[in-house]
């Protein structure tokens, strides 16, 4: 519906306890993300364990990536994060302006 200048890409959203932020962001770049946007949030889920308030509440990380990279990120999360950390992740599709920035 929006004009042809846009490109369809995946947005991967990860909400995680703050303690993993640094590690996670590094690994996102390694997995092929060209950037990310981080927001401080609070939340409640099934687990509710967080390391320390001194480390901050939760972070929400959003990264716009190509589908292959999205797959890689999900695999990474399943591999290293889901078991022991308070983390949720989901993916949706967005129409991005200047799609060449994201690869």
């Amino acid at each position, binding site marked *: 519906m929006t004009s042809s200048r846009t490109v369809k890409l995946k947005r991967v959203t990860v909400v995680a*306890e703050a*303690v*993993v932020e640094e*590690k996670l962001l590094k690994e996102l770049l390694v997995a092929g993300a060209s950037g990310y946007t981080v927001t*401080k949030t609070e939340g409640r889920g099934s687990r509710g*364990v*967080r*390391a*320390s*308030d*001194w*480390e*901050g*509440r939760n972070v929400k990380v959003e990264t716009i990536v190509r589908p292959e990279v999205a797959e890689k990120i999900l695999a990474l999360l399943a591999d290293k994060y889901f*078991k*022991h*950390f308070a983390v949720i992740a989901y993916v949706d599709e967005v129409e991005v302006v200047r799609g060449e920035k994201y690869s």
Partner: protein
Amino acid sequence: MDAIIANFLSPIILSFFLGVAATVVRSDLRFPEPLYQGLAMYLLLAIGMKGGVSLVSYPVSELVWPLLGALLLSAAIPLWVYPFLQKAFKFSKADAAAMGAHYGSVSIVTFLAALSFLEMVGVEAEGYLPAVVAIMEVPGIIVALFLIKKSSARNNGELWSVFTRVLSSKSVFLLLGGILIGALSGPEGFAKVEGFFVDPFQGILCLFLLEMGMVASRRFGDIRRVGWALVAFGLLAPIVNAFWGILLGMLCGMSLGGATVLGVLASSASYIAAPATVRLALPEANPGYYLTASLAITFPFNLALGIPLYHMMASWFY
């Protein structure tokens, strides 16, 4: 007994209980996170600077034993906590190591409360104690992680990266940085900033304890879940560790006040440096155990009863 009551009625302890009350009556009071972080930064820098100014006034010979003793003490604590929790209470290796890391490290707020208490009862303590705190923050954590590494697939590189990470973590960094600033700028330099780093200190500590009360009491509900074993450990381990701390303080030639504080430090469990490190290095350990024990059991116990008790214990020796 009088000392316990006087301790209870000091503004900082009352502030802690006010924080507990906020949770109990379900007040909508919340500490904005930046405020909490700002207060913590202030306390660490301030205590560091004051300690640094004092540190340089001591001859090195008087410092060597206490600092070395403190180092060994905090390294030794995990050595009994780790096997003990596995054998006596059937803790998993990861959970036992995590507990060792927390009780091997120290609680800075407990330290500050001890200084306040000693001031109230009129007992002097060595001015270099903040350096002792800095030295005791890290070794226990490293030793605990080393213990579990021996029995699992972790490699040395990981342990080294944990070491540098915890050394540069904000609490250790600010404390050491404050000590350095204090030591380098000396009494005259420090005099210029006392209007900020000394005069309002006790009041800012109150504000911080108000928040600590809220944080700790939010975990009170977990106490039931973790079982009596952890509760017993959270109340008895501090007393055992305090005993060794006091004894060591005496052997290292510290004063009554200094030995009391060393006892308090040994008895206290970290809830700042240790949890952040352990959560990443031992993700399979359950924070429900180590945070509840250090924050909701040992910390309030030490604050309200432990400190006067250890002071009494120390008085027997002196």
